[in-house]
């Protein structure tokens, strides 16, 4: 039998036959106490009488303090009793039975009462001994000596004060520094401090309704608490910048009857470790105080992503970017992305930029976030000096903390940068996406900002501008209206007109044009390139309408065709993506067609967009010849499927890799694009001419030129004239020759209504 198997578990108290052996300390502790008291008293005797010998002092003490001897004898008897009980089972048995009886009697008192009683007895004993010792020291009766002791203490206070000052001097300095450092960054607003109301937030009604619900529960928590629920304690507002999250919070502050605490995003960025923790603690101390005093409190963390994230080791970039920096795919001359829908752009961007983790811890520094997490739903521990210390000292159970009704609202445009633990229910119960405002919201917002300035826009025009600015937010709308006002003032007016708004919008979207004059042949090439996009878009794409077309060089493009969705649509279809690809490929097809199989590097961006969408269609969206998702295939490292749906040429399909299928799809679409462009040759050249003439055309005017009707600025009807079309064709031919020979074209840009056209 091994050593470990011999070990049996410790017997229970009830199974023991003899008393458990006392530890050495427990045996002697009272002797020690009595002995020390005796020695102190002897010492006191010795000190009092200079001629007294040690032996006589001991005897004298024993004589005058004989009760101490009595106590010692009682203790001896007790120890002997213990010793016998430890050695003799029958003796112990009798006592166990007796004590069981006594125990039953004693346990009639509650545990707490017994605890208090025992403490009273212990304190009384300590005070008694102290009194005796002091009495010996002061040579006074013990009771009187007890009252002399405080006097001695008070006399010694100045000295103690000096000592304490020396100790606390440094601590106070540190304390003061940290106290000052942990100030600031937190503003408290009381009801009626803020005038913003829910009615001032436009276009986000669905979110507002939910927030209103939260506030309602905060105002009347009994509604939910009496049914056993609890007031939802946290809301996260997330969404693109400028969509009114902060405004919403401000309106909450205005709307609620509770204090509103606004926490600065920078509040938790500190020079020293630990200050952030102090700040969090002092913030929540304040919140609890306010919550108790006013029955509830709302706290708002703006830019909550600044609180940081524990989960990701910060390596590389400082932030993950959910807004998808898509600029680099638009570096092509043609600004390849602008005529794609927003979702297609974001899909491309997502593919292009691997979602690099790399969201640095950022924000608060060590412990700040953890402190916040703990405060948000930490232990429900008793708080307060009186509660924790005084009550406990008096032997009373500390009271549980009351229900603090704190509504935490956080706003961020980078929800993925937040710590997961922060978002769990109990901390953040509800997450609302504050997206781009609906069309109705945009109309309301335009109306709101326009009502603050003088304007001559009709209701239809406001509706129209709201339609053609699908991703406008409160912030951009405000900016657009202001830009329009600046344009009006620059033109000597004080009232905004429709043209100001359109120009302001173009200015905002495209940035100022660089006023670069292209050489003629290049201008024509760019105009043809853009015209191909525009005509293709106009002919094939129904889910997007052209917003504008331009050949004015901007900061990062030579020309562009921008499109917008005419209505809020949330799903995308295969046909739509196909038309997206057609529009992208139109530039390549068009350049080859018009420039005799030549094409510029300007199509690179278009091809990239087309390829990406085609890949996603084939591999992700189930819009190709296979069904399985490339995402899963890649995750499980299975490779792409070879098999197709068609039974006839399965073998052929199987041999094809994914890229081959994508290439084939693109080739087919390119052929299709060529066919469409060939059919619309006249329209393309007409639109190119219009672009060369006017540089920038609005969507309406593009349609007018293609359909040969009267537009808002450009009249498209002259392009019906075959003679003029022939003139344009001639100019094109000359430009192509000039392009091939790198010289100035022989024929200049035809002008509508010019004599040459009339004569011809």
């Amino acid at each position, binding site marked *: 039998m091994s050593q470990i198997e011999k070990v049996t578990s410790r017997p229970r108290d009830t199974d023991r036959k003899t008393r458990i052996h006392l530890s050495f300390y427990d045996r002697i502790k009272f002797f020690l106490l009595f002995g020390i008291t005796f020695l102190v008293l002897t010492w006191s005797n010795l000190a009092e009488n200079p*001629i007294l010998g040690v032996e*006589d002092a001991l*005897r004298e*003490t024993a004589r005058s303090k004989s009760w101490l001897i009595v106590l010692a004898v009682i203790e*001896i008897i007790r120890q002997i009793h213990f010793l016998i009980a430890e050695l003799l089972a029958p003796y112990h048995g009798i006592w166990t039975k007796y004590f069981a009886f006594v125990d039953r009697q004693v346990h009639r008192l509650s545990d707490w009462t017994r605890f208090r009683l025992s403490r009273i007895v212990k304190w009384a004993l300590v005070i008694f001994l102290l009194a005796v010792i002091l009495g010996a020291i002061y040579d006074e009766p013990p009771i009187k000596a007890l009252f002399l002791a405080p006097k001695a203490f008070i006399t010694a206070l100045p000295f103690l004060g000096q000592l304490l000052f020396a100790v606390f001097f440094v601590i106070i300095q540190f304390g003061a520094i940290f106290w000052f450092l942990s100030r600031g960054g937190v503003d408290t607003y009381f009801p009626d401090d803020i005038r913003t109301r829910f009615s001032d937030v436009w276009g986000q009604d669905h979110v507002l309704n939910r927030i209103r619900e939260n506030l309602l529960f905060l105002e009347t928590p009994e509604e939910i608490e009496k049914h056993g629920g609890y007031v939802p304690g946290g809301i996260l507002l997330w969404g693109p910048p400028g969509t009114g999250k902060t405004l919403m919070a401000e309106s909450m502050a205005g709307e609620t009857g509770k204090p509103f605490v606004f926490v600065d995003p920078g509040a938790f960025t500190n020079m020293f470790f630990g200050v952030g923790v102090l700040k969090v603690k002092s913030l929540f101390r304040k919140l609890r105080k306010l919550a108790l005093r006013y029955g509830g409190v709302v706290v708002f963390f703006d830019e909550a992503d600044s609180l940081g994230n524990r989960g990701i080791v910060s390596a590389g970039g400082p932030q993950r970017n959910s807004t998808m920096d898509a600029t680099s795919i638009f570096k092509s001359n043609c600004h390849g992305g602008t005529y794609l829908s927003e979702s297609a752009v974001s899909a491309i961007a997502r593919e292009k930029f691997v979602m690099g983790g790399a969201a640095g811890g950022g924000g608060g520094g060590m412990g700040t976030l953890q402190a916040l997490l703990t405060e948000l739903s930490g232990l429900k521990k008793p708080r307060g000096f009186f509660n924790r210390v005084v009550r406990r000292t008096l032997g009373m159970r500390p009271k549980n903390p009351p229900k603090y009704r704190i509504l935490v609202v956080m706003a961020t445009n980078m929800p993925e940068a937040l710590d997961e633990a922060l978002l769990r229910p109990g901390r953040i119960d509800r997450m609302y996406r504050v997206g781009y405002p609906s069309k109705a919201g945009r109309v309301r917002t335009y109306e709101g900002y326009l009502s603050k300035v003088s304007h001559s826009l009709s209701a239809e025009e406001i509706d129209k501008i709201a339609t053609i600015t699908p991703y406008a937010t409160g912030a951009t709308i405000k900016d657009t209206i202001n830009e329009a006002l600046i344009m009006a003032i620059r033109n000597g007016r004080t009232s905004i007109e429709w043209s100001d708004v359109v120009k302001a919008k173009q200015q905002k979207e495209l940035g100022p044009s660089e006023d670069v004059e292209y050489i003629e042949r290049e201008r024509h090439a760019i105009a043809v390139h853009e015209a191909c996009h525009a005509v293709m878009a106009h002919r094939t794409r129904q889910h997007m309408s052209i917003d504008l077309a331009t050949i004015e060089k901007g900061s990062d493009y030579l020309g562009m065709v921008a499109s917008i969705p005419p209505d809020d649509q949330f799903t995308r279809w295969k046909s739509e993506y196909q038309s997206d690809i057609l529009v992208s490929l139109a530039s390549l097809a068009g350049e080859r067609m018009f420039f005799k199989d030549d094409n510029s590097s300007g199509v690179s961006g278009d091809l990239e967009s087309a390829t990406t969408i085609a890949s996603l269609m084939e591999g992700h969206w189930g819009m190709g010849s296979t069904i399985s998702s490339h995402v899963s295939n890649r995750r499980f490292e299975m490779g792409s499927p070879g098999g197709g749906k068609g039974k006839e040429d399965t073998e052929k399909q199987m041999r094809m890799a994914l890229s081959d299928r994508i290439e084939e799809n693109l080739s087919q679409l390119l052929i299709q694009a060529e066919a469409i462009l060939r059919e619309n040759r006249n329209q393309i050249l007409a639109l190119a001419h219009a672009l060369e003439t006017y540089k920038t055309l609005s969507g309406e005017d593009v349609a007018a030129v293609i359909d040969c009707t009267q537009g808002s600025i450009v009249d498209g009807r002259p392009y019906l004239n075959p003679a003029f079309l022939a003139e344009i064709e001639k100019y094109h031919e000359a430009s192509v020759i000039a392009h091939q020979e790198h010289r100035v074209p022989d024929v200049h840009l035809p002008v509508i209504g010019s004599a040459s056209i009339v004569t011809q």
Partner: protein
Amino acid sequence: MRSGRILALGLTLTIVLTGCGESSKLYPASKADGVFFSVPKNWNGLSTAALNKYEKGADEDESDSRQSLVRWQVAYSTDPKIKVSQVFTLKPPSSPLVFARVRDLTGTEANDFSYNSLRNVITPITQLADGVDLGVPDFKILEDGEVVEKGARGIQTIYSFSIDGVEQTLNQTSLMSNDRSTLYIFVVRCATTCYTKNKKVIEEIVTSYTVQGAK
């Protein structure tokens, strides 16, 4: 563990045994005045109250006021039947008698008091030494020296003289407190034969006399 038990037992025994025994001496003391001395434990004492009472009854005029200056006085003797009256006479006692007194000095006294005044506090020693006949024959000064205590200083004189044909020896220590406000008198006396016999004990008692001064 075993050594622990032995230790506990030892501690208990010390307390118990010292409790059974009594002090080897008596330690009369006035802690307030800072006066201490010891006498063998079989000696008998007379308390301040008893002595005061006797003094008040005996004297009427001048000593009445003197008596009020007394703060503490005790007397000890080996004689179990010692009487207060024996303390306050110069008749030679047959057994050693210790008398200790602490009294305040009046303002005049404090100004006048010299070492000679201290010598003369019980017997006019200076006059006797000068040969003035005061009816006490055989006057001798056996020892005379300065005594410096913590709280007082003064003179210790051992002298003898005869009354009614019996010679007695007195060991007298009289001190004045450092602030010249208090007089400490300590006398051990006995018939010379008895003094010689008990010399060792008497010297021990005198040596034990300690004046720390008032707190």
